[in-house]
């Protein structure tokens, strides 16, 4: 059993353990979850240190590290050909940072769930199941395996939002589920199409292996997604473009892009704090990861044709998300919309098809991962105390909760892209990449970069305005004295969670090479893979 399998299935052991222990030991559930996740984090840290920066990943099996490949399902389906499904894991420069991020955000989420009292057994079991699925998604290199983890992830989330969520939780849970499932069932059809189009050169069997799908030589001539002799069209769209579009939308729903983002504010507002942390910190990244790993790598030719539209969608998401955030009165909703805006940068960066832009997009995913997690955690802090997060119900928190305000201020400044923090690096690289795109000739015009910069400006506006509305001025709460006494400053547990997160934002802001070094070779390979079709 390799390290990646261990990383994926450790949480499953925790789930089994939690389910087997009697309810009288319910105090131990959170310690079990914490223990397993700490081990997982240590393991991912070990992977980080052992990672060889020079390997190129993406479409070369030799470019992946910690590879595990086992034959899983082998079937002779007669005229449907040999079915070949592998248990195939590996990481490259794109997935490794996200793996570390996931383990880190999971730790935060468990810290944030310390005070959950409602059926803890189910809660922690589902949380660990979710943990397993997320790790699996980032490691899987077989499309079938990827799809299974992708769908398995939905179930625990449905229950986590639906059972432990707020007043309107049923609606939010099913809405989230439906949106994602809608994208993924059509993804399944594309997977089936790819299966028929791709042949494993070694065994002559049809395969779900993603790396084989990335090699044009493995496509059967005249098959549905073939590079050569492909005359298939659906509704006038060439087959390969159609495959790209469907897969893109499946993942774009997760990112989320405007106008498919409407599940996100609902899910965030209704979800309990830890689930919000996971949603913003990990799940949105799965969308971005999927676009890079699947859409761009398997359909580079279509991606090269479509990137202007992707850039446009990115810009729209940045601006629309930011403008919506300006109008919000619920703090959690505001941060949810800011997520839409910040994830727009990821899309813009990927669409720019320059090394800077894609590195920036990946960096932005990481940075947004723990910063948005920190922001949601901070919202959770006051929500836990007074069960309210309406911006106008608070005023002058700065003098009442000085340490809390300090954390909030740092988190706000970090996310609005203040130089020295990680979000600055991510956004700056995306903007630089987009500016350069025109000179490289990837089809992304300069005005998109300018529009992206306007997005940064807007994010400063809504975050600083919120800071001013809630934290400065005369102390005044809607709940009066009762609230004043309930609103105690951050306690030790909260500090333990917040401090490393914000420190990480600072560290990566000063030393981005910690991440860039790991992903550089992979990003360059991706750029060269796609740009040959420009």
């Amino acid at each position, binding site marked *: 059993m390799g390290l990646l399998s261990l990383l994926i299935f450790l949480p499953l052991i925790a789930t089994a353990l939690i389910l087997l222990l009697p309810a009288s030991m319910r105090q131990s559930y959170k310690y079990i979850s914490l223990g397993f996740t700490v081990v997982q984090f240590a393991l991912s840290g070990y992977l980080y240190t052992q990672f060889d920066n020079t390997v190129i990943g993406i479409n070369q099996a030799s470019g992946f590290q910690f590879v595990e490949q086992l034959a899983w*399902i*082998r*079937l*002779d*389906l*007669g*005229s*449907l050909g040999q079915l070949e499904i592998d248990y195939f894991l590996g990481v490259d420069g794109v997935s490794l940072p996200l793996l570390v991020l996931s383990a880190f955000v999971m730790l935060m989420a468990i810290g944030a769930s310390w005070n959950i009292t409602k*059926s803890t057994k189910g809660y922690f079991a589902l949380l660990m199941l979710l943990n397993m699925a997320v790790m699996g998604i980032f490691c899987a290199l077989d499309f079938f395996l990827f*799809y*299974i983890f992708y*769908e*398995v992830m*939905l*179930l625990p989330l*449905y*229950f986590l939002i*639906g*059972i432990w969520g707020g007043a309107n*939780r*049923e609606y939010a*849970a*099913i809405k989230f*589920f*439906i949106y994602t*499932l*809608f994208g993924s*069932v*059509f993804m*399944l*059809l594309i997977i*089936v*199409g790819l*299966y*028929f189009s791709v042949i494993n050169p070694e065994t002559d069997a049809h395969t779900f292996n993603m790396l084989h799908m990335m090699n044009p030589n493995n496509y059967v001539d005249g*098959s*549905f997604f073939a590079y050569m002799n492909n005359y*298939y069209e*659906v509704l006038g769209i060439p087959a390969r473009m159609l495959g790209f579009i469907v897969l893109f939308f499946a993942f774009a729903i997760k990112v989320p892009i405007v106008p498919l983002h409407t599940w996100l504010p609902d899910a965030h507002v209704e979800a309990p704090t830890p689930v919000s942390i996971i949603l913003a910190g990990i799940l949105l990244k799965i969308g971005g990861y999927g676009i890079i790993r699947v859409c761009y790598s398997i359909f580079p030719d279509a991606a090269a044709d479509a990137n202007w539209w992707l850039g446009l969608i990115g810009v729209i998401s940045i601006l629309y998300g930011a403008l919506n955030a300006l109008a919000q009165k619920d703090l959690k909703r505001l941060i949810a919309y800011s997520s839409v805006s910040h994830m727009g940068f990821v899309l813009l960066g990927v669409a720019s098809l320059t090394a800077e832009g894609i590195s920036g997009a990946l960096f932005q995913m990481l940075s947004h991962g723990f910063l948005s997690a920190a922001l949601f955690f901070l919202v959770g802090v006051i929500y836990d105390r007074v069960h309210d997060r309406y911006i106008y119900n608070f005023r002058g928190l700065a003098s009442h909760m000085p340490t809390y305000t300090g954390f909030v201020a740092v988190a706000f400044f970090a996310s609005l892209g203040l130089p020295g923090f990680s979000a600055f690096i991510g956004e700056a690289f995306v903007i630089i990449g987009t500016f350069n795109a025109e000179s490289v000739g990837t089809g992304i015009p300069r005005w998109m970069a300018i529009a992206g910069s306007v997005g940064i400006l807007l994010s400063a506006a809504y975050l600083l305005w919120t800071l001013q509305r809630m934290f400065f001025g005369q102390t005044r709460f809607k709940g009066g004295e009762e609230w004043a006494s309930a609103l105690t400053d951050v306690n030790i547990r909260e500090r333990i969670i917040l401090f490393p997160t914000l420190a990480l934002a600072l560290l990566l802001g000063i030393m981005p090479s910690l991440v860039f070094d790991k992903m550089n070779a992979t990003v360059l390979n991706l750029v060269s893979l796609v740009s040959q079709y420009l």
Partner: protein
Amino acid sequence: MQDINTQLPSILDQVIQSIPFFKAELALIFAFLGSIIATLFLDKLWKQSSFIITLIGIVSSFVLATQQFGQPQSGFFGMLIIDNFSVYSRGIILAALLICVVFIQQHFQYKTFGKNLGDVYSILLAAGLGINLLTSTTNWLLAFIAIETVSISSYILVGYFSENKRQTEASMKYVLFGSVSAAVMLYGLSLLYGFTGNLDFTSFEHIQGLIEAPKILLSVALLFMFTGLGFKLSFVPFHVWSPDVYEGAPTPVTAFLSTVPKIGAIILLARLFEEWTSSSFYFSELVLILISVASITTMLIGNLVALRQSNIKRMMAYSSIGHTGFLLMALVGNLASEPQVLLFYIAVYTIMNLAVFGLIDVMEQKIGSVQLENYQGLGKQFPITFSIFTLLGISLIGLPPTAGFIGKLFVFTSIFDLFQFNNNRYYLILLVVGALTSVISLFYYFKIPLYAFLRKGDEVKILPTKSTQIVYIISIILGITTLLLGIFPNLLLTLFK
């Protein structure tokens, strides 16, 4: 007269030689007679005697059927076709029948309703005989007899237990619809016979006759014929009887009706479809269009109407209509692939459906209701039951990591293969609708965990029952099987090779 006298010995010889091919069905026939006798005489001495005889009959029929594996043969002048396809499907049918018998026995074990349970076993065996025959014939006459055997048994099953007006109404509807559609089918068959002069739909004369037949009349004949089969399979627009019947019949009987007869009808249709669509003549195009359109509308209507149901049995009735649509799609896909894809989907569908109805039965006995809203908050009280319930829902939607997903994936795969082969837009619509309806079905299958886990309810008083243990265990095992087959589909697929 003279003529017959000379032929008679050879005919008799042929009949006698054919009897061994019929041994699996003979076991059912003997069990049928045995259980009638046991009901009349032995049940007074030992209450379970007819039940035991039924079980022995089904098991021995299963064993005898599996012995026929790998030796394709035909008997009774080509009326009975024994091939591996038939052996597999009879295996699934008999296993499902066995489970249904146990469900029924458990359901009525402690109930006194003034009628004899032993009769039900013999009717089930007769139905099993009919369904078995459906899977092993290509002759219209035998197929019609088999369909009628199943239908009449089903009417009795539904009507026999009716305790109130609603149930009587359901059985009445069933009989009326059933007899009319049977008559229409027979008329269609007579037209087909008139065109072709041969009742074996695989025979050369039959196909030749169809090619030469006038188009309009042939279309009418085919429509009539599909009416009869459509009624048995309850595909749209011949589905209207099934929600009432499913809701009105006792739960284990519904479990039987929604799965086992469908298997037989689907297998017959698969044989027909494969034979008729392999040529490029007018009627094969027509058959393909008919089945595709029926599949598309059935999936859409079944799933859309299921959204609005509040009674879980009624909801499952519409869900099973939706799945019939999907089965038709699997049948179309059967053109491209070996029968194992179709068989796998049928087996998985049977497992899921039986398990769901088993759990519905358990809950019905415990809380005395089949209304979804009465499941409110029960997840805490019955965590295992509702976890398995949710798992089965996931499998019915077709989400990984369950067997339902693998089944759907394979069906999509085979349809896609056809699409890639000849770019027919019907295949594309089938794929898109198949994918779309699984999203729709999420809404109603997830009503179960929605009520059980997400909503809070009062602690429910459990009715004192003694007879849910075995049904419960069987359903749980079937539920876990769907998970197991989802992760290791090889276990079942290699069996169907």
